Every structure is written in C-alpha cells, then in structure tokens.
C-alpha cells in the first residue's frame, strides 16, 4: 500500500508516505492500480521494508509526540494552509501582473518568451509570471558613455603621424526598445566599441592641429556620429546617437611640458606684436603732432616771418630761463649764486630763485 501511493514511483518517498500505514481510505484511487505497473518497485520489494522500517519508526515517534501534546495543532495548520497558499498566490499574481511605468520608461511584454507588445508609461496589466513577462527600461533619458573611462589616456594616431590624446562622450537614446533588447544584447558595450573605433578612424584622417585646435572638431564629431549611426542602423540596433562631444584633445601627457612651450611662445609673440603696435601708434601720434605744430607755426610764419621767428625764440627762452638757474654776466664759469645786483633781470630773477 505504502509503495503504491507514490505516483512518481520514487522509492525514497516510500518511507514518508508510509507514516499512515493504517488509514488507507484517504489514498487516491489511481495509485492503487499502479503497484503492479511500476517498474521501479520490482527490484525493491525485498529490500525496502527493512530500510523503510527505520524511517517509519522515526515518523511514528514524531507523530505520536505531536499528537500527544495537542490534537488541535495540526488542525490549526491545516486550516491556515489554504489561506497562506491563497495569499501567496494572490501576492504573486499582483506582483507579476500589475505594472506601473514611469514617465520615461517603456517596457516589452513577452508571452511565454515571445514578444507581444511595447508599452509606454502608465498602468498595465499582464498575465502573471511565467505566462507574461514585462521587461522595463528607461528610454526617455539619454544614455552617456565616456571614452576612455575617466582620466585614462587614449592616444590616437593622426594623419600626420602624431599621437593625440582624445577623450570624448557619446550620448545616445534607445530608439527601438525591441531591437535594442533582442538584437544587441550588450548594447552599451557595442556602442562604446563602435564609437571608439570610429573616432579613431576620424582622427586618423585629420592632422594633429586640426583635431587639437578645435578648428575641425565639429566636423570630426559630426562625421563620427554619422558613421556610428549608419553601422547601428545596419545592425538594427535600435539606437539613436544624439551627440558626440570631444571633451579633450591634446598632446600626450608626457609631452605636455614641451607643448606648453608653444603656448608660451605664442604668448610672447603676441606681446612682441602688441609692443610694436603700441610703438607705431605712439610714433604716428608724435609725428602727426610735430607736423601739425610746424604747420601752424608755418602758417603764421608765411604771414609774418619776422614776428613769428622772434616769438618762437622768446617763448623758448622764457621757458628755458624760468626753469633753470641763470647766471648773468659771468665769464662762462659756473657761479654759486646769481648776484642780484640789478633789478633789471626781474624776469629771470624769481625763476632762478625758485629753482634754488
């Protein structure tokens, strides 16, 4: 009887089922017909009783203990079991069939593994797992990949045989979630690889100065982006590249010092040019000033030559004498102080004293 109960013909289960050797009436009708057909049972017939006996004993002693302590124990368990089971099933259904998608999310619904539909933000119901599955993904926000990682140096050969350190960022979006999920399982890695290779290809077509100076950076970015997009489209990757931005393009780190000299030289050259320009401006201003002074003087000279000459001379002398020590009537040797014997050189006297 005990052996016959096992629907799977697993001899290991015999012991457990054998607990209730006496009450047989609960046994389902089907297994009762099985014993003769069960192929596994045949070799076991002589050995099982001995083995199962010990297990039976254990169960019996346990069962006796529990029933002795309180008969209501198992009954209570039995009563709660359906609720427990029902509750967990309900929770499971709730958890796997009600879905709320946020504003920037989309999700793929698959029925038994097969793609059914793509849904957007909002409340959605599906069959519980494992019948329907929802794969959600943020599609609204842009994804970014910086190449190379962090501060690593990526040296790329340029068309003129130099090495340039380029760091850039790819920004992209999931345009077709179905394609992105199923056609390109490692989407981000693929985008990174592709972007790196295409950027290198782009850099290799330009000269060091073109890439570094930024003169052709826009072109490089545009070009690389178009190329990546073309490949991704051919792969049906479901990816839309939004932008490629060169973050850094410069000489290799170990040449930075030497490279700095170029900037310094450029600065110095600019300063030289500025100085020269300043000198030129001053020279022009000076020449124009002198010329216009002369032109004015000449205008009056043309009208009154005698007076103009005399006035120029007297004005000059006045300024010279006013600002210097004047010795009158000396023999040519410098005197300590002008002898103010006369009151006639009044014009020169105060000035001379002021000078001392």
């Amino acid at each position: 009887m005990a052996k016959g109960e096992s629907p799977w013909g697993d001899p290991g289960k015999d012991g457990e089922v054998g607990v209730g050797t006496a009450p047989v009436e609960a046994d389902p009708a089907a297994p009762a017909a099985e014993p003769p057909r069960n192929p596994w049972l045949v070799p076991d017939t002589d050995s099982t009783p001995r083995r199962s006996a010990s297990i039976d004993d254990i169960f019996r002693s346990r069962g006796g203990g529990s029933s002795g302590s309180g008969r209501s124990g198992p009954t209570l368990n039995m009563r709660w079991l359906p609720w427990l089971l029902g509750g967990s099933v309900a929770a499971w259904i709730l958890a796997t069939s009600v879905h709320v998608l946020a504003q920037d999310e989309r999700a793929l619904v698959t029925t038994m593994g097969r793609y059914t539909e793509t849904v957007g933000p909002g409340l959605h119901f599906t069959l519980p797992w494992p019948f329907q599955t929802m794969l959600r993904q943020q599609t609204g926000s842009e994804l970014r990949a910086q190449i190379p990682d962090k501060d690593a140096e990526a040296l790329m050969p340029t068309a003129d045989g130099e090495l340039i350190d380029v760091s850039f960022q790819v920004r992209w979006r999931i345009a077709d979630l179905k394609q992105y999920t199923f056609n390109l399982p490692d989407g981000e890695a693929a985008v990174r690889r592709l972007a790196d290779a295409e950027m290198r290809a782009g850099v290799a077509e330009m000269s060091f100065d073109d890439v570094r100076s930024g003169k052709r950076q826009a072109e490089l970015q545009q070009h690389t982006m178009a190329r990546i997009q073309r490949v991704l489209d051919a792969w049906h990757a479901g990816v839309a590249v939004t932008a490629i931005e060169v973050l850094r393009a410069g000489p290799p780190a170990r040449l930075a010092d030497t490279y700095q000299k170029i900037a310094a030289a450029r600065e110095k050259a600019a300063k030289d040019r500025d100085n020269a320009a300043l000198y030129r401006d001053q020279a022009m201003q000076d020449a124009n000033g002198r010329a216009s002074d002369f032109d004015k003087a000449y205008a009056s000279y043309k009208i009154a030559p005698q007076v103009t000459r005399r006035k120029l001379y007297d004005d000059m002398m006045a300024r010279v004498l006013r600002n210097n020590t004047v010795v009158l009537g000396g023999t040519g040797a410098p005197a300590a102080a002008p002898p103010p014997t006369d009151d006639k050189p009044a014009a020169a006297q105060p000035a001379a004293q002021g000078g001392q």
Partner: protein
Amino acid sequence: MTSAMRRTRAGLFALTGIALLAASSVVVVGEGDQAVITRFGAPLSVVNRFRPETPGAASGAGAVLKLPFIDRVIWLTRGLQGYSLGGSKVNASDGQVLLVDTDVTYRIIDPVRLASSLGSGQRVGEQIAAILPSLLEEQLSQRPGAVIAQPGSGGAARQVLSALDAKLRTYGVQVVDLRFGRVVWPESGQKLVFERMQDRFTREAWDIGNAGVLEARQTFYQADADAAAILQKSASQDPEFYDYFSAIRSYEANFGDPARKGAATIVIPPGSDYLKHFNGK
C-alpha cells in the same frame, strides 16, 4: 487528522511533481535566444533560429514541448555579440611593431552547427582568440606601420573579416563586423614618435617666437619710416624754417622742461645777443 495531513502531503507532492515535469518538458524560448534541443546529444530541432534573409520577421520565440529529462537544451544568443581581442602584436612590413585591438561583431546563424562543434556559445570567443592573431599577422605584416594605423588599415580589416568569417562559418558563426580599434606602438616604438613630436613642438615654439620678433621689428622700422614721411611732408614746405623751428623746439624740450627744473645752470655773458637790448645798447 492524519488522513487530512496525508491528503495535503500527497497533494503537495503531486503539485511539486507536476511542476517539475512541466519545468522539464516546457521550454520557453525568449526573443533574444535561440535554443537547440538535443536528444541523447544529437540535435533534434532549433527554436527561434535567426534567419538572415528576414531579420525583421516574426520570430519563433515562445514555448515548446520536449521530452522531460531526456531532451536537453543548448541556449545560444540570437542577437549580435561582440568580442574584443586586445593588444595583438603585429610586425609591419617596414619593421615597426604595432599593438592592434580588434573588435569583432558576430552572430550565430547556424545553431545546430555551433552546438555540435563547440557545444556552447561561450566558446566562440575562444575560437576567435585562437584564430585571429595569425590572420592579423598574415594580413597586416604586408603593410607598413603608417598604413596599419590608418582607418581600415588599407583594406586589411576587410580581408581579415572575410578570412575570419570563412573560418567561423564552420562553427555556424557569421562575422558581421570587424574593425581595428586601438592601433598603437609598443613602448619602444612610442618613444620614437614621442621624440619626433617633442622636436616638432620645440621647433614650432621657436618658429612662433621668432615670427613674433621679426614682425615686431618690421613694425618698428615701418613706424619710423612713416613718421619721417609725415614730417618730411610738412618740412618740405620750407626747409629753412623747419630747421629753425625744430631747433627751437629741441632747446625748449631739453632745457625748458619744468620737470627738470633747475637741473642746468645757464650762464649768459653780457655780450650775448639775448642781452643785446638788456644792456641798453
């Protein structure tokens, strides 16, 4: 009580058994997977196989039945997969040694062939890693280093792609894309490049500085010439008066500057022209 327990227990066993049986006999193949079902090791069927001729068509994904415990499933990726082989050493035809990174994108197009030859999708990478270096050497060693560093390496990428594709087809794998990512010189080769770049930068810095100096000098000379021309234009009106005028201006500027008050002592002899009238003569 015991009969209820027994009934429940039997029910649980039955449930578990059914679940086990179902788990073992139902295969759920997702959109991203291809599954090869084998019986006693021999491939029986392929579920959700990728068809290159109709890549966008409805797939064969879904649930299929198999014999429980007997039929086995080999899972393979349906989509594109990538493999990167980094730093393969390549000898260029001009003697340069280069390190080449290769990015391969492939797809399993014949799951049965793959399953029977390699047994699992993970081993495709091993095969690529084993095959690729010799193909790279074969193709790239015919080209000089400068060409290898160019995008596509002068057509080498395309040739390596087709050679690799031909070899991997025997495993049911199609190579969709192959490109060389990083192509660099190893440390010793890089030193030469760096030295050359250093020379270039130094020369460039000197050129820039020198150009600045030359240009500044040119500006100085030009300014002087322009100033002279301006004055000449005015002076040519009356050279004699200009001579007088600029002499007077010069005296005034040099001796009459208030900023240098009292710097000079001027001795005026009684017989000088300036005092001609002062002396009352």
